[in-house]
């Protein structure tokens, strides 16, 4: 099958405007007759469901949590980018576009990224109008900060809770539509299959997680806004319930999976403390603006961080990357931490951590504050006190969170951090209209692959989720639905619904009938370990080939020996989890295959075979400037389709942060 990305012709900065000017429209009377299913209610799903409801479509929205407000977008901390140029520092749509394409290490689609940069400004306007309380200056105008090493201040934020505030804005818009009757909300429901009729997505099979009963829902089209799949690694910064199930079911029904191996490993997370660990907690990247990262110069140094004198500390990022220092992009910072720990310089009880130290920042800020009051000769303890107050104002909530989890006070001792899986750039392959390779099936937000290439920049995930939901899908969906106005709602006793429900039912019954001896959790942990060890921060052909065999073996064991207590027709969290882990056990294999195929290093994907003499990532544009779009052909069987990437505006160069 050939892939048509449907990128409009014309100049890069005119494509979206031209597209909108010529796309088909649906008149209001017809919108009322068209039904849309939205799965997932994070930033992408809630904004799409609300906007489409406002336009007059009949929307049904689904989430597995108890309320749409719980979706994991809520946990995003740092901020959201927009090319407003409110700070008069030379920002523009072009610069945001350029930075995002370069940051993605030239593995994203230029036209999509340009559109993202174009609509970024509308997002900020929309959120402010909804009452999202962004940070402000004394004059009452919006405040910005720089984020993730960009040279302009384009990040809008609400303390360390930007995702929460944006999601609550979208959630309130969604609930308003629920009250108006244009959106029907199904909470505690999980999508377990797509229903296809004559090649088009026409509905879903969902399980009511409270009663355990299966339900059939018709839609003229289906939107998957179901987030990323970082939980395939077991330990990640994702929420416990985050899963790939909806996207995976779509994949098995014909939607291609794009760049599955592209995973973002975030450098500043709280390290693993023991085998009991259930998830990892991110500490905002903004900490790297002031914190200095180091390890002892001496291998296996067992002294406490504060007892190691200055001259025995190796500030390895500042040493290796003098131009960017502690502010190198996420992928570079993560690999450097792993390299130091693998070499035996790690700190803490597990030795799988590095220090993030605020001592110098506290002294620097303390001196500035003392200087403001003319107290140049202030005593050391006064300087420390003043400095701590400044640091508390900037990062207080993060320091508090760190102390709650570790029991250590980061104002007194250096924080310990280590990289953790945070985001997946890969996802369902979509064209310019966000449509998958299945007609009528769309993917939005983190669930699609499109905008971040091989590495996502900070404060770009929120931007993309809301761009897709508020400002892209309301236009592109019309182009499909305009041809559907003559399609009457299909009753759910149609054979395709009956057959799909039967298949879902058989799978659940099969899971419950295994009655083996090992818990779902134990399988998930083992899968996570294989993925982290062999498809994590550094990958090589040997490890990936081994991982594929190990995952196949583990999957076989799962289907013959998993133990799921309880019954089908009741609230059964173990059964819910079993279905998700079963899908991760298939996805993991595809991720390893994709990583094995891509014998180059780019962004978050580091192949040990493809590095420079200094150990930096080496991209191979001649052979790998394409999107891998995998087509499901049956158990352990995929066909690779390639969408070639062309760069008309941002010419690929090797990234250097030295």
């Amino acid at each position, binding site marked *: 099958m050939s892939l048509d990305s449907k990128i409009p012709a014309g100049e890069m900065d005119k494509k979206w405007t031209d597209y909108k000017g010529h796309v088909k429209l649906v008149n209001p009377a017809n919108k009322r007759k068209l039904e849309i299913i939205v799965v997932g209610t994070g930033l992408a799903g809630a904004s799409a469901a609300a*906007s489409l409801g*406002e336009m007059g479509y009949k929307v049904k929205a689904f989430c597995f*949590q*108890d*309320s749409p*407000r*719980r*979706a*994991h977008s*809520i*946990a995003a901390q740092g901020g959201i980018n927009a090319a*407003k140029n409110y700070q008069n520092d030379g920002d523009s749509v072009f610069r945001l576009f350029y930075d995002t394409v370069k940051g993605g290490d030239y593995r994203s689609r230029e036209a999509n990224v340009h559109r993202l940069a174009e609509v970024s400004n509308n997002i*900020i*306007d*929309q959120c*402010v*109008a*909804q*009452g999202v*309380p*962004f*940070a*402000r*200056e*004394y*004059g*009452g*105008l919006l405040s910005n900060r720089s984020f993730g090493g960009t040279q302009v201040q384009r990040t809008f934020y609400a303390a360390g*809770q930007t995702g*929460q*505030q944006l999601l*609550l804005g979208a*959630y*309130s*818009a969604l*609930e*308003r539509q*629920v*009250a108006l009757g244009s959106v029907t909300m199904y*909470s505690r429901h999980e999508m377990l299959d797509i229903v296809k009729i004559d090649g088009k997505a026409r509905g879903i099979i969902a399980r009511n997680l*409270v009663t355990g009963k299966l339900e059939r829902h018709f839609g003229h089209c289906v939107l998957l806004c179901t987030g990323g799949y970082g939980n395939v690694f077991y330990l990640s910064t994702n*929420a*416990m*319930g985050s899963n790939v199930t909806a996207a995976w079911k779509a994949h098995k029904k014909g939607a291609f999976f794009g760049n599955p191996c592209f995973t973002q490993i975030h450098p500043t997370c709280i390290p693993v403390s*023991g085998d*009991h*660990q*259930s*998830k990892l907690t*991110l500490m905002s990247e903004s900490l790297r603006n002031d914190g200095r990262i180091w390890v002892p110069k001496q291998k296996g140094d067992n002294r406490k961080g504060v007892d190691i004198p200055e001259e025995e500390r190796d500030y390895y990022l500042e040493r290796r990357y003098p131009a960017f220092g502690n502010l190198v992009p996420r992928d570079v910072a993560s690999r450097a931490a792993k390299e130091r720990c693998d070499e035996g310089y790690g700190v803490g009880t597990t030795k799988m951590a590095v220090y993030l130290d605020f001592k110098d920042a506290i002294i620097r800020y303390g001196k500035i504050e003392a200087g403001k009051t003319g107290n140049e000769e202030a005593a050391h303890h006064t300087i420390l006190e003043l400095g701590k107050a400044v640091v508390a104002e900037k990062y207080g909530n993060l320091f508090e*969170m760190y102390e*709650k*989890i570790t*029991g250590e006070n980061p104002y007194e001792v250096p924080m310990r951090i280590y990289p953790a899986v945070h985001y997946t750039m890969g996802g369902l392959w979509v064209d310019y209209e966000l449509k998958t390779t299945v007609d009528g099936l769309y993917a939005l937000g983190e669930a699609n692959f499109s905008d971040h290439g091989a590495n996502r920049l900070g404060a770009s995930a929120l931007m993309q989720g809301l761009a897709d939901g508020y400002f892209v899908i309301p236009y592109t969906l019309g182009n499909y639905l305009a041809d559907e106005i003559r399609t009457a709602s299909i009753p759910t006793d149609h054979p395709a619904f009956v057959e799909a429900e039967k298949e879902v039912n058989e799978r659940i019954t099969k899971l419950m009938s295994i009655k083996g001896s090992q*818990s779902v*959790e134990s399988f998930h942990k083992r899968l996570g370990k294989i993925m982290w060890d062999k498809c994590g921060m550094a990958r090589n052909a040997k490890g990936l080939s081994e991982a594929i065999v190990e995952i196949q073996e583990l999957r076989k064991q799962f289907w013959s020996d998993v*133990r799921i*207590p309880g019954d089908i027709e*009741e*609230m059964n969290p173990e059964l819910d989890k079993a279905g998700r882990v079963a899908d991760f056990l298939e996805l993991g294999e595809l991720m390893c295959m994709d990583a094995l195929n891509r014998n180059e290093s780019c962004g978050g994907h580091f192949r040990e075979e493809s590095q420079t003499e200094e150990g930096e990532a080496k991209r191979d544009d001649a052979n790998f400037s394409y999107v891998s779009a995998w087509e499901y052909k049956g158990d352990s069987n995929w066909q690779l389709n390639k969408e070639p990437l062309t760069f008309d505006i941002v010419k690929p160069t090797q990234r250097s942060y030295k």
Partner: protein
Amino acid sequence: MEHYNMKLTLKVWKQKNSNAAGSFETYQVSDISSEMSFLEMFDVLNEQLVNEGKEPIAFDHDCREGICGMCSMYINGRAHGPWTKNTVCQLHMRAFNDGETIVVEPWRAAAFPVIKDLMVDRSAFDRIIQAGGFISVNTGNAVDANSLPVDKKDADTAFDAASCIGCGACVAACKNSSAMLFVSAKVSQLALLPQGQPERETRVLNMVTQMDKEGFGNCTNTYACEAECPKGISVANIARMNREYLKAGLNSEAK
């Protein structure tokens, strides 16, 4: 931080579904590390139950970083347990000592029926938001974000109110099962901002009406809600909502 292991006795509320009668069950766990979170201790217990062929305990949880508002356990008589300004998922086992007995219950309120074990139905909160917890602005209607300056003090106060995570601890902590802190936080956020002015009066009237309809109790100023709120939402919001409600009520009668 010195780490230690402990043996604990847990008395946990078990209830098959919303119609069944519930009761406490007693469980023993050992080798619980002080570095675990409270929910990780529950993971250990559930894993143990699965391995023994018993049914694990159902509880709500998702982000495990204190922001989604899904976790909800009433521990030793306190919503979210012994630490202040904290959610259950962020509570760590160093808050407990070896040999202790811990009692764990679901949120108890008529408006939050139990679904199973420690899980409750908080959809009443969604319905209160549906009644008016929004600004009616369709996508695409917005003007430039900086054309609406907001006094920094008001913006900060609105943000503090907006940081509510909708967990329902305020209701669980209140002897009257009042939802005043939750409702007033949303009313305050939007009443403090210029964007919220056009619907200011109808919003508070409609949200309070819905709150009463859901069966939440009245506020008798015990401040238990503020004391147990994981985000430290202030009861000053309740005072503000009362003023807003009174003013809106008088105006609506005058009209």
